């Protein structure tokens, strides 16, 4: 008998329960209830978001596979395809940062190689509470350690990403993991259980009691008992995953696989019913054959376990033994646990009894769908940090210093302000983070962490791929629709600045509680803004993930859509980085006529990106850097720092006067790029044709950054000094005493 208490434990409402009874025409068993609860959880069913997600553009010339499969796939020419996706692992990473983040990486990698693609790059977008709180340091160290632990051992380079600090993430860090893989476009595999009578084969790690109800956990907020949910977090084994990768790809190459899906959220349940539903077949499982790590596991536990590094595959009946041989070669468990049937049911047997019998589509297509109430706030929130969003999450004293300089621009020490800016938590070098990641394995990394986009070459071609993650949450919180457009614009701008052409996108939509009408309004606005911008830049969304219930003690996080954009660089010689190259190069500022703050004019932005693309293809550009948080002064400093090819280099620049010193140096106006060139006149001609403004700012050279403003040398500072402040700020913050 299913009591109200049991329903509550499963996060199911009374009306959802009635729907289950209606579908089954009887009361569910406890195992069935568990199966429904995970498949109908927010995490698996997208029940609050689906009505909105339908509005996103998902088709385009390059798209081979849109949302709904394990990952999106795009065509990049040369008979090659790219599978990529971003996914959140926020809740587990708060409870247990190291394993939570590690298994987030593991999950997204499986999504990629499940489709037959070999993962060649990973990135991650991370958000934490301010570093002057001890607990946030601990979470940061755990998350970074976990990502390194998993990705390094697996052998995928972590080539980039982003890290931000803001108060709202103190008790709800965001860990969004992205992975990208490559394969031949006629060798794509899908999670479809075709072929009545074919064996359903379980491969990989044994099933244990870990992670039971992970998907349900990810669909609720946290209260006082968050620590008690620790056993819900899975433990990752990257070595096992590496073996699984090699064995799966080998089995696929040998033509032994009909369909395949990883056991991620909701484990054996989700992989079996989704594969059946997609192929309109049934699946019959015999749980007695499932490899188990612990004795005495119930059918409920086996079906709901989220033990990591497991795959379910369907093979052609005649090739079962060959599948076994491949997995044995790699030392992995491989067992036939079921059969494909023609009745459309997920039928689960244990010890001779049927413990669950549910139509596959009831768990997938027929999951509840909610059109939750939306409510816009009375007014959009403006904030004192709209000009200087990088200060969000900083200590109050630093914020005061900048706001004081903004109000009293004369007589300030701008050398000191610039140093403070580049060493502030949101602008400081992330080297401490990415040095812990192997960002070079597979020997394709042309541009690793730290430039506008990361670039990996494609062996055997003259092409490279550019990829970036962007999630300007502060802007989205102020104005969700405009902020979402900015996310798309910025991500595409980063791809273009690195020499690429944006092809498609994946999104990870991190939001608060969808039962709060204002959160659903934010969500809806973000979807609309993203739709408009993705149409403008011709970057359809090929997949991704929604993470709701990011709240602690009832307080919602910033709405944080993270956008991953992938582009192709048609020729290796087009690869461009943000770093200044040679003394004497002319520094040029390109901007749109609309000087906007906190929003973006998509037409102008498109012109800007077309301009940069054309200029790079005409070989007129030596470096290109997007101006983002911290404005022009910070962007210029970033172009000067030392790198593998050269020591630190200086620049002499005249800063255009629009308003006042502090605003013109650090103000974060949209749609601006710093280029260097030896052909400024040619750039001007192209820019004029496109209705853009190009101004020559100065020259690369020397060892100091000199910013002339009106008649003053407002900034005149040694690059070595500035670079040291920037490069060592994060380790310093981490080792400083805090509350």
């Amino acid at each position, binding site marked *: 008998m299913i009591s109200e208490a049991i329903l509550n434990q499963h996060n199911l409402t009374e009306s959802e329960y009635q729907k289950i009874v209606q579908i089954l025409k009887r009361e569910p068993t406890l195992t069935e209830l568990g199966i429904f609860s995970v498949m109908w959880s927010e995490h698996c069913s997208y029940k609050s978001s689906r009505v909105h997600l339908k509005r996103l553009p998902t088709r385009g010339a390059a798209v081979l596979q849109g949302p709904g499969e394990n990952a999106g796939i795009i065509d990049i020419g040369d008979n090659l395809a790219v599978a990529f996706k971003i996914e959140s692992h926020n809740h587990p990473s708060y409870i247990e940062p190291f394993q939570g983040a590690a298994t987030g990486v593991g999950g997204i990698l499986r999504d990629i190689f499940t489709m037959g693609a070999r993962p060649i790059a990973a990135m991650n977008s991370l958000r934490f509470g301010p570093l002057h709180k001890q607990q946030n340091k601990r979470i940061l160290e755990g998350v970074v*350690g976990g990502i*390194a632990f998993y990705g*390094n*051992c*697996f*052998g995928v380079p972590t080539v980039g990403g982003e890290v931000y600090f803001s108060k709202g993430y103190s008790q709800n860090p965001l860990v969004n993991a992205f992975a990208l893989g490559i394969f031949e476009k006629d060798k794509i595999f899908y999670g479809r259980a075709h072929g009545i009578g074919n064996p359903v084969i379980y491969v990989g790690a044994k099933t244990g009691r870990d992670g039971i109800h992970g998907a349900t956990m990810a669909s609720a907020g946290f209260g006082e008992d968050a620590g008690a949910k620790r056993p819900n977090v899975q433990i990752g*084994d*990257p*070595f*096992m995953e*590496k*073996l699984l990768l090699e064995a799966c790809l080998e089995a696929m190459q040998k033509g032994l696989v009909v369909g395949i899906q990883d056991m991620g959220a909701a484990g054996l349940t989700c992989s079996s019913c989704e594969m059946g539903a997609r192929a309109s077949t049934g699946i019959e499982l015999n749980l007695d054959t499932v490899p188990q790590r612990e004795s005495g596991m119930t059918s409920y536990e086996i079906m709901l376990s989220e033990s990591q590094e497991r795959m379910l595959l369907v093979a052609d009946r005649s090739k079962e033994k060959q599948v076994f041989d491949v997995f044995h070669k*790699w*030392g992995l468990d491989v067992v036939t646990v079921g059969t494909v049937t023609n009745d459309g049911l997920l039928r689960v047997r244990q010890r001779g009894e049927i413990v669950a019998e549910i139509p596959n589509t009831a768990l997938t297509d027929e999951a509840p769908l909610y059109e939750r109430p939306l409510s816009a706030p009375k007014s959009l929130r403006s904030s004192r940090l709209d000009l200087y969003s990088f200060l969000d999450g900083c200590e109050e004293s630093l914020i005061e210093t900048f706001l004081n300089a903004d109000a009293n621009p004369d007589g300030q020490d701008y050398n000191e302000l610039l140093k403070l800016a580049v060493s502030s938590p949101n602008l400081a070098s992330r080297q401490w983070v*990415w*040095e*812990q*990641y*192997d*960002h*070079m*394995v*597979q*020997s*394709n*990394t*042309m541009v690793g962490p730290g430039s506008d986009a990361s670039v990996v*070459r494609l*062996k055997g071609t003259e092409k490279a791929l550019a990829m970036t993650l962007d999630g300007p949450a502060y802007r989205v919180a102020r104005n969700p629709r405009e902020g979402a457009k900015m996310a798309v614009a910025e991500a595409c701008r980063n791809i273009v600045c690195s020499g690429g052409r944006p092809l498609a996108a994946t999104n990870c939509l991190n939001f608060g509680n969808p039962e709060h009408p204002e959160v659903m309004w934010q969500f809806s606005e973000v979807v609309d803004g993203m739709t408009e911008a993705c149409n403008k830049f011709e970057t359809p969304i090929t997949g991704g993930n929604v993470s709701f219930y990011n709240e602690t003690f009832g307080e919602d996080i910033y709405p944080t859509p993270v956008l991953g954009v992938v582009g192709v660089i048609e020729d*290796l010689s087009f*690869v461009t980085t943000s770093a200044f190259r040679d003394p004497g190069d002319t520094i040029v500022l390109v901007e749109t006529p609309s000087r906007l703050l906190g929003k973006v004019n998509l037409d102008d932005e498109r012109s800007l990106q077309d301009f940069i693309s054309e200029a790079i293809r005409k070989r007129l550009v030596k470096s290109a850097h997007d101006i983002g948080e911290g404005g022009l002064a910070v962007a210029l400093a970033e172009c000067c720092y030392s790198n*593998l*090819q050269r020591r630190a280099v200086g620049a002499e620049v005249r800063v255009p006067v629009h308003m006042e010193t502090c605003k013109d140096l650090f103000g974060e106006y949209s749609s601006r790029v710093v280029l260097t060139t030896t052909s400024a006149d040619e750039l001007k001609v192209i820019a004029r044709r496109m209705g853009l403004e190009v101004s020559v700012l100065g020259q690369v050279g020397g060892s100091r950054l000199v910013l002339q403003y009106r008649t003053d040398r407002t900034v005149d500072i040694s690059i070595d000094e500035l670079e040291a402040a920037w490069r060592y700020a994060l380790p310093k913050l981490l080792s400083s005493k805090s509350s």
Partner: protein
Amino acid sequence: MKFGVVIFPGSNCDHDCYYVIESVIHKPVEFVWHQDTSLKGFDAIVLPGGFAYGDYLRTGALAKFSPVMTAIRDFARKGGLVIGICNGFQILTESGLLPGALLRNVGMKYVCKFLHLRTETVNTPFTNGLSKGQLLQIPIGHGEGNYFADTETLKRIEDNDQVVFRYAAPDGQITGDANPNGSLHNIAGIVNEQRNVLGMMPHPDRSSESILGSVDGKLIFESMVNALVGAQKA
């Protein structure tokens, strides 16, 4: 002339090494499965980087029991060239083919970055194309690269000119700041007494093409080719 690149379960720089040999220095190369027992026909063996057996127990501790290691011991004893890179170096010390051990980095963290190596000897088949003192830009990527040997062993390998590379500052000085992992005397790579087995933590496989930031690693592979060509003539 044929190179072999060994694949252990968990090797993950196997394809990188293979690629350099095949597509950068254009020499014949084949993969060798860790359960193979014969190295017939090979002239040089590469133990690539990665996490053989997940680095469980201790880096290299399980890999040394792979059947191929018996063949590699035999191959090395007969003078065949063996280069162990990163995890390959760890496997060579665990197997006793090279002296010393690789401990956890002093910073207790994995470190991946480009740095400078100073060439300490050119009297090896791996460095014959370099000049003594030559600085190389080659990246590391490891959590356990902290070279350790007892005082006596350390003295012996230094006296015997077995230290091949040390971590150096950009000006070539051997300093504490230039040491990324706490290695004794900044040691980054050593050879055995016979000088035909090299272990090094830095990755020449990641620094053999200009688009990856450096071509200095290629000099090591080319030196091996020189040595093999020389041996064929002799």
